């Protein structure tokens, strides 16, 4: 029974192809917008999650402090209060597995005719382990090299490309701030950091070398940051507390004094970030849903006009035996088919746009089944909801009035 009415619905839609298409277009755009926006939201979520994960797992970051002085709040890292000795002391804590004190600064690097301005990170051998970063050519520097001030360097991918092109940098000599350094290794590609910097655009040198030879006056035995990896996720909070107590004691801070350092728990940062990006997904989806809703109103509008325009047709159908229910089902089928077709094409368009956005604008997108199925379900529900009133209006007509109607 539904089948023969389906035939009537399809025939009526085919007879009005342009109108059918335009109506479906409203739903198509709405569904495509929902799919695209949610894909962008989830892509961002994934990107942020991955860049936080790329920092390293179970990570606490201790920055040398920003003490309050006369109400002026200096930025973290401006006042080097942490020392290499502090870092070593933190390393003795039972819950800490790896500790990497670091200093950072801008440097100019020259190789042959090429020169490149980048960031140098001075740190120890644990740094790469904490950040789960591999050396893909050459070797890592040894513990003794890290503590001795030899002039060796590991190059990030970007730096290697800029200075050496296709040449193998390992074993070559470069000049960093006029001092000769030996390239001992090249790092794996790491991509963008959370802040949007290219993490491959940097070099790594031994901590002592950086302190003494690159940033001599700025960091005399001090470090700007200490990365600490806890043994297990459960150790994170207790370790944070242990470090705080240890450093306060070492810096001779009395009970009322503020910390002269800051500890960032990266697990908490990651949780907050995923909460925020999750909200972003929902927000984008909600905004896109408005266009789906507008598309639904478009359906209702068209169906209302269609019912009025086809009053006579409805009258004819009733006179030759269609019941109210037949008319109701036919009109409802029309709107549901339109929204379903719009929904299916909209999903395809949305996924296509998401892939296109990734390829052309480097926007992270992630298409998952849930929002796609949801968008499809909603588009069908929209068809039923917004089609029901016009369909009811059509079915409630009295045949003699409908037949008499001069359209």
């Amino acid at each position, binding site marked *: 029974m539904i089948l*023969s*009415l389906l035939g009537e619905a399809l025939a*009526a839609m085919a007879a009005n192809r342009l109108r059918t298409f335009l109506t479906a277009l409203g739903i198509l755009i709405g569904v495509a917008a929902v799919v695209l926006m949610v894909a962008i939201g989830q892509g961002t979520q994934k990107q942020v999650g991955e860049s936080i994960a790329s920092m390293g797992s179970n990570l606490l970051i201790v920055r040398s402090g920003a003490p309050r002085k006369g109400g002026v709040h200096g930025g973290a890292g401006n006042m080097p209060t942490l020392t290499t000795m502090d870092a070593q002391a933190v390393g003795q804590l039972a819950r800490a597995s790896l500790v990497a004190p670091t200093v950072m600064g801008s440097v100019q690097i020259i190789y042959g005719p090429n020169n490149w301005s980048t960031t140098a990170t001075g740190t120890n051998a644990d740094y790469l382990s904490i950040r789960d970063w591999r050396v893909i050519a050459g070797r890592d520097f040894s513990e003794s090299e890290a503590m001795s001030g030899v002039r060796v360097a590991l190059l990030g991918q970007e730096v290697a490309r800029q200075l050496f092109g296709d040449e193998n940098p390992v074993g070559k000599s470069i000049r960093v701030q006029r001092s000769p350094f030996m390239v001992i290794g090249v790092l794996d590609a790491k991509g963008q950091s959370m802040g949007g910097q290219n993490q491959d655009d940097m070099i790594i040198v031994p901590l002592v070398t950086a302190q003494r030879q690159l940033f001599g006056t700025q960091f005399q035995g001090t470090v700007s940051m200490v990365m600490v990896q806890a043994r297990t996720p459960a150790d994170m909070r207790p370790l944070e507390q242990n470090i705080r107590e240890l450093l306060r004691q070492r810096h001779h801070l009395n009970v009322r004094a503020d910390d002269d350092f800051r500890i960032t728990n990266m697990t908490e940062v990651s949780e907050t970030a995923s909460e925020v990006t999750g909200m972003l997904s929902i927000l984008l989806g909600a905004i896109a849903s408005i266009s789906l809703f507008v598309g639904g109103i478009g359906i209702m509008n068209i169906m209302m006009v269609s019912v009025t325009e086809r009053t*006579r*047709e409805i009258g004819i159908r009733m*006179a*030759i*035996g*269609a*019941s109210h229910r037949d008319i109701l089902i036919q009109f409802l089928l029309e709107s549901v088919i339109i929204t379903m077709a719009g929904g299916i094409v909209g999903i395809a368009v949305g996924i296509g746009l998401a892939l296109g956005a990734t390829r052309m604008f480097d926007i992270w997108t992630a298409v998952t089944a849930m929002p796609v199925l949801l968008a499809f379900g909603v588009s069908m529900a929209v068809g039923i909801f917004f089609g029901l009133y016009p369909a009811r209006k059509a079915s409630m007509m009295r045949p003699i009035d409908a037949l008499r109607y001069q359209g």
Partner: protein
Amino acid sequence: MSDLLALHDLSKDYDTDAGPVRVLKNLSLKIGEGEFVAVMGPSGSGKSTLMNIIGCLDVPTSGRYLLDGRDVGGLDDVDLAKVRSEVIGFVFQGFNLLPRATLVANVALPLVYQRIGRNIRNVRAASMLERVGLKDWFNSLPPRISGGQQQRVAIARALVTEPRLILADEPTGNLDTHTGRDIMQLFQTINRDSGMTLVVVTHDRNVASYATRLVYLLDGRIHYDGPVDGFREEEVA
């Protein structure tokens, strides 16, 4: 001859802004199986209202209407639709074909509402179109054929369900005299060959002359009921 339809003391009121107006007044009428009846009357005499009630498109305010022994006065919309679908075939003045459907699809349409499968529908529709002389036009659209041909399609559509009763409302009203005569001859043939009961509403005396019985309405009442040639319209005035 058994009665196909019987109206007993039937009245119909319409609500207007000036209050209810009684269009049919205690009207009684019987039509037997196989009769060819013309219903005439001036405008406002109630012939369209009578037609709608006989066709189960409308229900009487009071009185009884028995169609094929069934009381259809108290039926709800769904049952009325079923009666229209199974017992009655309509032919209208304005043809009332679906302009965007082919002739076969138009003729097959009543069978859709009888839940008959597509293949059988199309076979029956095609044979009906053949019967009214439109063998070569199956897949044409109504606007592409003449008015006379469109009315033939409408007749084929009315016949396709093999109804007990065909109701025609001014079937020649939109046609020229010559084509109108062809259509009336077609009705006559259908009545004679298959014994189908026909009720034709018209204001045209020539059209009525094809029928075997004339019912003349005046002011909501039956003014004359008898043989077509026993009535002089001038007597009314």
